[in-house]
């Protein structure tokens, strides 16, 4: 089990990788930074981050754990899958002619996941009432039926 870095440290490292052209060899670190971002979300919900794999990736298992009873978290589902996709491209075909471009894109995908999660940790409602169709004030809804 790896040490969980602070959000500020994850942000700093992602900014470094985004600013300088990343290398295909950075793919594993970027995937791990994605996992760490998700771990923060899962811990903030009072759960122990899973060590399970989903479709072969802990990142996807962590996303699923984070979205449990919280459909708004699916707003970052495709971003997680894009991160895994880029990881696969870069690790399976590191010499591919498109590798430099893929390595340039992967930090931006990881950064988006981080920004969404860190934004949501500050503003819980982020993504809640747009794509998730979940009312913010469910308790009020229960007590105040529409007339």
């Amino acid at each position, binding site marked *: 089990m790896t040490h969980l870095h602070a959000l500020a440290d994850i942000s700093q490292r992602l900014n470094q990788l985004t600013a300088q052209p990343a290398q295909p060899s950075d793919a594993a670190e970027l995937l791990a930074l994605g996992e760490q971002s998700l771990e923060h979300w899962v811990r903030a919900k009072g759960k122990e981050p899973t060590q399970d794999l989903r479709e072969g990736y802990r990142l996807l298992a962590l996303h699923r754990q984070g979205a449990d009873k919280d459909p708004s978290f699916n707003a970052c589902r495709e971003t997680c899958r894009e991160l895994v996709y880029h990881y696969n491209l870069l690790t399976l075909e590191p010499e591919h002619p498109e590798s430099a471009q893929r390595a340039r*894109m992967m930090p931006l995908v990881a950064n988006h996941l981080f920004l969404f999660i860190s934004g949501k940790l500050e503003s819980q409602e*982020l993504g809640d009432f747009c794509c998730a*169709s979940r009312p913010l004030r469910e308790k009020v809804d229960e007590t*105040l039926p529409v007339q």
Partner: protein
Amino acid sequence: MSDKKAKSKQEKYGEVAYYPGCALEGSGSAYNSSTKALGKALGLKIKEVENWNCCGAMEVKNIDPKLQTYLSSRVMSIAANKMNMNTVMAPCNGCYHNLKKAEYDLANDEETMEVVDRLSKKAGHETYEAGQVETIHALDWVKETIGEEGLKERVKNSLDGIKIANYYGCMYTRPRHIFPEKDAGPGSESTSQPHFMDDLLEAAGAENVEFPLKTACCGGAHTLSDSDTSTLLVSNILQAAEAAGAEVIATECPTCHSGLEMHQIRAEKTLGIKTNVKIIYFTQLLGMALGLKPKAVGLHENISNSFDFVKEKGLA
């Protein structure tokens, strides 16, 4: 899709009840004018929903989701029962999403049905019943009636040489269960990798770039209440588009579009991150490809200035 099915959609969507929604009368005015201009150029008929109301947007849904469902159902009720239309076309992702959600809830939740019936009677109009109309997006409208081949035949100013990142935002595909027609096999739209906008713009000559953030959150709903988060999210989307080689981000949602435009400026001012990618509605791009003047598709109504760009590309 079978020829018969394709033909029936072509006929069905050839004349639709048009539901612009509030945003298209305000910040998304350019989307309104370009959608109408595009429809006219393509020979598609639209009839604006009479006396339409807000779909409940995010604000009402936030407070009382069943009231939002009622508001959306009223729009569909007018289209079905007063205008005798069977299709409602909503270009705004928020409106489209809310009408689809209302449709789903009215087909599946008895409590919602009761509340909507009670409110409809109180308001003095017929209660909308699930299945009376089909709600479609402007992308479905063009894709299913004209399609890629039809567009190719009509293009006067090809978008050739324009590299585009297609940005769909979050509400066009989420949550999956309210869009039963998506992920329905070959030819249908995908909720994980939407492509209708890509298909149409490519048919008009554009070169679509690989863009991994096409459905990523732009922080749209928080654009004013938590501007810093929105600026960071938008700035990352813009940088990713540029890194992908795009000159233009094509949009199909007024909230995303305004957010991208506003936070592009704000990112430069507050974060010192300058991006040059142009933000243009897909209806504006297709309209210009069909030979419409930039002003006819409301390019002057956008916050960002794309006039020099479209002139350089031979679209003006």
